[in-house]
């Protein structure tokens, strides 16, 4: 059972959508790395996933938490969504600034 699954992930790795900004100008955009990160997560590699894009896990968390919150209507849900969302925005900004300063935009 493991073999077709792995080959599917490999096939997915070869068919990622390419960033239009990166293909035209050669520089990463703030969202670059997200697909590689999700792919690494699907393969079970948490460290690689974090290295490609640190905001992946919180993003996946907030999407699923929002779905659950809309279904079950937690009391603290909206507040938590706001906080996590702001945190993700800060993570994305810091990640991009870090990439600029460490010359990783062309990776």
């Amino acid at each position: 059972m493991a073999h077709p699954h792995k080959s599917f992930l490999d096939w997915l790795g070869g068919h990622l959508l390419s960033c239009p900004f990166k293909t035209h100008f050669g520089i990463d955009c703030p969202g670059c790395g997200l697909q590689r990160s999700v792919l690494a997560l699907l393969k079970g590699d948490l460290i690689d996933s974090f290295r490609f894009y640190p905001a992946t896990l919180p993003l996946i968390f907030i999407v699923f938490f929002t779905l659950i919150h809309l279904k079950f209507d937690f009391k603290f849900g909206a507040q938590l969504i706001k906080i996590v969302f702001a945190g993700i925005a800060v993570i994305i900004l810091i990640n991009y600034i870090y990439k600029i300063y460490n010359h990783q935009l062309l990776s």
Partner: protein
Amino acid sequence: MSEEQENPQENKPIDLSKKEEPVVQPINEGPVTPPPFQQPPPFQQPPPFGQFGGGFGQQNLPNATAALVLGIIALPACCFYGIFGLIFGIIAWILGSGDMKKYQLNPGLYTESSYKNAKAGKICGMIATILSVLTILFFVLVIVGAITNPQMYDDFIRGMK
């Protein structure tokens, strides 16, 4: 203009002999002012025990869910030149703030949880909009730099490698 409007009124008794025109004219004259819309008095405050959508007669705000979902989608959608993130963020912002106003007009009519959702959607939309605007500004800077002096841009790219 005022004379033209007054003339048909003055000519009314004269036109009565023609029998047909005065029937048409009074319809066009007075603009029909609709009666001023009165806000219905706010209903009772939501009961404190209402956990899952409150008491009777309360409904969710119409766009709260849409605002929240769009606001969250807007963040990963900023990849494509930041345009989709901007669009989704602004839509979420507008929907959320509109629903907040709707709730504040009569707070008893809608559930408080949907109000919180609308507020969260508005804030998420704001954050996503700000991030997208920053992204677009950066992109514009890079594109302008690449167009104005491509030689420097190439050196810059080579220097980063």
